[in-house]
């Protein structure tokens, strides 16, 4: 091998390593989601939430290997640029040459698949938080299997699979819309159809139902932030030094500014420094910067993050006023800030048009709202969506799993 070929091979190797490191980081976000959701809900539903998160990860990966990957990256579209299917399973490309030639010589076919597979389950996990503490386990599993196997990849193909929105110039770097809003819309519809948890909106106004473990919630947020370096950093799709380091800076500043935004507004509104809001603030900043992490300047990423931090606080209060009960704030974090982040690209990046960004946001809204409605309502008809009142009161852990999360601990299941 001559010098140039060797150097190419070295570059290929490092790109590939970076993509796999990113894959691992996205993987650990699933623990982040699980911890956050557990921490912000009641102890009596802990086993149920953990079960959902572990199994949806496994199911998401498997369905992605069966059909999701080839729906999202169909190669050729079958129906306009709206829908295509590349065939069942993942087909090992031939020989190591085939591996190396894949995707401009940046990384292998397998790397591509596994990085994308880790993303897939995220969308379902986002829904999980919003419908927590009252949805039937089996119904949730059915919903999210279908959502992850079909809705998410088809929607994804429009942009990342080089479909019609990509042709239009719509930009979504790492998925403010394609991942977070797609999950967020289903979260909204799910929370709306299910109705609030018993006791949340009483005749005495809104009674907050406190999460049972702030350390777990915080561990969740730190792990999500940690994993986000792979989520955004990996979305560069190579180890290009200039790009990934810029993405690291904007991602970090966005998150930090989100903390500050949520801190200032919530401290101002409730006169007290509210940890649960500050935690959501960092996630809000991260979701907000995700659409434009590589095209927004560090300075502007602070602005995007800060506004996301304000938005998440306002949005949590707003949805509570609408009596849409979202135990972990998933709608506010992922949907609202996902939309904000996508539009922000149109504002802060000269090369992208606000109108196109808006069209993208709108199209995903329509598609996701309709699919979620159909799915949730059909499941409700066929199996029922919500656990019985009795089960909700004693908790889903005993109701659905016959198991307790904290055996031996004295826990007030009420108040």
């Amino acid at each position, binding site marked *: 091998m001559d010098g140039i070929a060797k150097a190419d091979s070295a570059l290929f190797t490092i790109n590939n390593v970076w993509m796999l490191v990113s894959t691992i980081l996205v993987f650990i976000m699933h623990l982040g989601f699980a911890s956050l959701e557990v921490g912000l809900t009641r102890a009596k539903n802990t086993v149920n939430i953990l079960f959902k998160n572990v199994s949806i990860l496994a199911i998401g990966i498997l369905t992605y290997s069966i059909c999701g990957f080839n729906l999202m990256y169909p190669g050729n579209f079958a129906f306009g640029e709206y829908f295509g299917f590349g065939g069942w399973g993942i087909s090992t490309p031939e020989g190591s040459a085939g591996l190396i030639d894949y995707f401009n010589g940046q990384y292998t076919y397998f790397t591509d698949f596994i990085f994308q597979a880790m993303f897939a389950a995220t969308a379902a996990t986002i829904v999980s938080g919003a419908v927590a503490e009252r949805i039937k386990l089996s119904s949730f599993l059915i919903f999210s299997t279908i959502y992850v196997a079909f809705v998410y990849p088809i929607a994804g193909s429009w942009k990342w699979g080089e479909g019609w929105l990509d042709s239009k110039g719509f930009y979504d770097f790492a998925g403010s819309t394609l991942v977070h809003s797609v999950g967020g819309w289903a979260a909204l519809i799910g929370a709306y159809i299910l109705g609030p948890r018993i006791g949340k909106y009483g005749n005495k106004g809104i009674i907050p139902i406190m999460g049972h473990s702030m350390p777990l919630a915080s561990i969740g947020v730190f792990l999500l932030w940690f994993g986000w370096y792979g989520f955004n950093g990996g979305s560069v799709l190579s180890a290009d030094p200039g790009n990934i380091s810029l993405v690291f800076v904007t991602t970090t500043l966005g998150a930090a500014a989100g903390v500050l935004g949520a801190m200032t507004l919530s401290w101002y509104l409730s006169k007290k420094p509210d940890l649960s809001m500050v935690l959501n603030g960092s996630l809000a900043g991260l979701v907000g910067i995700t659409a434009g992490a590589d095209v927004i300047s560090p300075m502007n990423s602070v602005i995007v993050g800060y506004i996301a931090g304000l938005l998440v606080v306002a949005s949590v209060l707003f949805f509570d006023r609408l009596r849409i009960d979202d135990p972990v704030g998933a709608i506010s974090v992922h949907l609202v800030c996902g939309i904000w982040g996508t539009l922000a690209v149109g504002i802060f990046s000269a090369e992208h048009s606000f109108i196109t960004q808006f069209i993208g946001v709108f199209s995903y809204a329509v598609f996701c709202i309709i699919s979620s409605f159909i799915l949730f309502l059909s499941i409700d008809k066929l199996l029922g969506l919500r656990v019985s009142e009795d089960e909700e*009161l004693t908790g889903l852990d*005993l109701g659905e*799993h016959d*198991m*307790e999360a904290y055996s031996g601990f004295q*826990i*007030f*299941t*009420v*108040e």
Partner: protein
Amino acid sequence: MKLIIAIIQPEELPQIKEELIKRKIYKFTVTNAKGQGKEIPVQEVYRGLSHEVTLLNKVRLEIALNDDFVNDAIEAITKVAQKDGDKGRGKIFILPIEECIRIRSGERGSEAIG
């Protein structure tokens, strides 16, 4: 003066609280407890093994009152908890109190109880 000790289902506490307050009984003390009674034991599953748990979560309510409030308190509790006829709805015990002292002021007797 009587001390009412009631063992109730945890999820009934908020409603019982409301009923008590309606009847001007504002003060009580609550502890977490586990109870064994005639109710159907809960089945638990862990690592593939299923077993019966007979000590179930209960809430223990303690209300000290003057004698003329006793029936009101019983009513408040039974009203909520009788709504279905299941086993395991709990018990109320009434004990005599000889003296009651409000710590803050040192007041004694039936004055101090409310």
